[in-house]
């Protein structure tokens, strides 16, 4: 441990991509490009990009504020403006950031939206969030895309038809009006072809954790890996290059039998393999991660990395059916799956990636993830007889990250895993 951390080429590529996007956002006054605010789950960036517009993701802004230790103040400011302590802290962080000038991670002001694209997938609070934003940016048009929930374990033709009609009659006309460009299906198809390639890579990348040692941490590092596809680069050639490069690097790591890269260098000994359910805490991200790698725990799969799309079960966007495909992509996001589907997906991860334990990081702010997690845990425990652990934190509210509490619980969990291993070895 504690080796010098060398930046891999994919890391440099990602940094360049994100910096470039924020630079582009900073220059919209000069370039005249229009800005669309939207969400990560069901982020139909290909459609936004096909109109030559730029996406902004309030959730990403919020998590970056959390990582930059700014979210605490933003949340406090939002609460002073009447927001309850009980509600989603992403919303409050975003409101607070807006009240403080909407300064992005690069120090530049994030431009105001020209369109609010409420692609409401798997999280009811998104709807409330955009009701708030609509009032903070009066006069900005809202395009609502309601994504039906996979309540019956499947996507029905009626669900797809409902979404396609919304795309055709609500979303696309508003995008045409705001951007001044006509809908170009060929351009969209070409972007979707790239997305399909990226989705293939993503599956392969997260599948590398089948190796021992796992070359990646599919949660803490995983959130960086899903960064490009969830922050505006769906459908771009840059995304294809990035994921191609990342996959190549991972093949080398597998070949050399190297463990995951952590903020303190390569993890040398893989002691525990875990599957994690729930988003991470962003305000203490490094400390949180360290609690795991210090104990030799690597996350071999996480539900959070599927929040912007689930590709493990075979779904890929189909460029030949662009709008149907966008609809199905939205409906396939993790939190849009019903509880039983979530249990099945997690079960598959635990089995396929040979996990020693299952851990829930329950997020105070996120009912979409959290409500039902205890039952998910119970189901997996019963079905697979796997040790389960439970910790609680929040997305971006530092008041809800209790280091010692989490550490105590994790230490007990790891002790349990250790003892189980000893028993199984005997």
């Amino acid at each position, binding site marked *: 441990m504690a080796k010098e951390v060398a930046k891999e080429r994919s890391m440099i590529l990602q940094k360049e991509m994100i910096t470039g996007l924020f630079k582009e956002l900073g220059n919209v006054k000069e370039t005249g490009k229009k800005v669309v605010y939207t969400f990560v789950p069901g982020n139909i960036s290909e459609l936004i990009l096909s109109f030559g517009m730029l996406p902004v993701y309030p959730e990403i802004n919020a998590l970056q504020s959390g990582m930059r230790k700014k979210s605490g103040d933003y949340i406090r400011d939002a609460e002073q*403006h*009447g*927001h*309850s302590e*009980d*509600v*989603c802290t992403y*919303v409050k962080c975003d409101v607070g950031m807006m009240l403080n000038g909407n300064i992005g991670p690069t120090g530049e002001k994030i431009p105001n939206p020209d369109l609010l694209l*409420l692609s*409401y997938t798997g*999280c*009811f*609070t998104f*709807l*409330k*969030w*955009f*009701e*708030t934003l*609509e*009032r903070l940016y009066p006069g900005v048009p*809202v395009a*609502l895309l*309601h994504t*039906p*929930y996979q*309540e019956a374990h499947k996507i029905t033709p*009626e*669900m797809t*038809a*409902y979404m396609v*009609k*919304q795309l055709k*009659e*609500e979303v696309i006309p508003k995008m045409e009006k705001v951007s001044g460009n006509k809908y170009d299906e060929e351009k969209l198809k070409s972007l979707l072809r790239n997305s399909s390639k990226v989705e293939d890579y993503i599956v392969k990348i997260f599948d590398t954790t089948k190796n021992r040692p796992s070359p990646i941490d599919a949660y803490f590092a995983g959130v960086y890996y899903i960064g490009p596809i969830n922050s505006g680069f769906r459908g771009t050639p840059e995304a294809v290059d990035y994921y191609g490069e990342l996959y190549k690097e991972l093949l080398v790591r597998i070949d050399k039998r190297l463990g995951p890269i952590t903020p303190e260098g390569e993890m040398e000994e893989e002691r525990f393999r875990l599957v994690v359910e729930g988003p991470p805490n962003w305000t203490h991200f490094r400390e949180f991660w360290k609690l795991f790698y210090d104990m030799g725990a690597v996350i071999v799969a996480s539900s959070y990395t599927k929040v912007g799309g689930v590709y493990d079960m075979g779904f890929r966007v189909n460029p030949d059916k662009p709008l149907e495909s966008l609809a199905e992509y939205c409906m396939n996001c993790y*939190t849009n799956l*019903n*509880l*039983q589907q*979530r*249990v099945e997906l997690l079960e598959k991860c635990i089995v396929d990636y040979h996990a020693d334990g299952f851990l829930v990081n*329950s997020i*105070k702010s996120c*009912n*979409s993830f*959290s*409500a*039902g*997690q*205890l*039952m998910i845990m119970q*189901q997996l425990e019963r079905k697979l007889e796997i040790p389960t652990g439970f910790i*609680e934190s929040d997305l971006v509210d530092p008041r809800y990250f209790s280091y010692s509490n989490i550490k105590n619980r994790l230490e007990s969990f790891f002790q349990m895993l250790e003892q189980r291993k000893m028993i199984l070895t005997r």
Partner: protein
Amino acid sequence: METLKEIVARCEELAFDLSFKRAGEWKSEQTGRVVAGYMPVYFPREIIHAANGLAVGILGGGDKKLIIKGDAYYQSYICHMPRSIVELALDKHFDGFDGFIFPSICDVIRNLSGMFQLLGQGKFIKYLDLPQNFKQHIGGTFYRHELQTVLDEIYKLNGVEVTAERLNHSIGLFNLNRRLIRQLYQIRQEFPWRMTAADLYHVVRAGNVIPVEEHNEILARVLSLIAEEAGEPLDKIRVLVMGAFCEQPPAGLIRTIELAGCYIVEDDFLLGSRWIQGDIDTTSADPLEAITTAYLEKSTFSSSVYDVGNPKEARLLDLIRRRKVDGVIFAAPSFCDPALLDHPILQKECNDKKIRFISFLYSENTGQFKVIKEQVGTFSDSIKLWD
């Protein structure tokens, strides 16, 4: 002939009967009857009625059920109602139910539908995705299909074909129900001393768990009783209580507000019973379409419906004006994202228009009202003294 006091006592017993005795009796009176539970807020009960079924509103255990097992299913920061619903399910209170409907109002209720699936409750579980698109050929078509899937489930159980005639008849009964409730609210807003808000609450809530025909009789009787002058007006302010659209406040809290110097002349308790504003067409050859159209065009406002193009603050102001309200009490359940995220928007409007308001949180089993009584009392006094 029952007095108002007796009717209210009967309704209170029915409303909080967690064994759902009347629904069970109704079902056993005839073969082929189906009982389907539905969660807040709104579900078009007409369609179940037309299929020889009874739609029973499930509003949690309130303050009548001790929660032990339910707490093991939810983290501390999830609202209270789902844990009491799980407790009721695990304690077999829903054993006579054939199925459950979960209207899409929030993530917690959505995921509760999955928990019911995993718990193996009932013969069918339907998460009813209410459209957020209000165009007939987009959201309307989708919603109609959603309703049809509910009917298909009931058909599988009892084989009852829902004809236009049957459905139009059911719509007529529920139109009458809504009309009677509207009239009750109208009288109460003019003469709030004739019947307390808690009594009205019990009378309306009883309708969630008994056949609509029986409820209509109760409502008609109550109306005739309060049509005549009774009691004396007191020096109280007129308030609108808002935020309780799903998890219900304990009746003690409603009483406390009125005891602390207020007349509640408008509220969003039991909003589902008043969701459709006006009548649904009973003469259509396609009554399912009529129900769909009513949802798209006649829905009231609620924290669970996106309000683009129809801002909730404007509708709140309209309600305040129509009900001649002196102040607003924002009372929402703890950890309720939809209600609590509305509050800054609505409270800003109140501030801008100089409408007095207070806010506090509750849960369905809140048992201590002293602090709330003091807060509401001060609010009432301040309006009486200074406005």
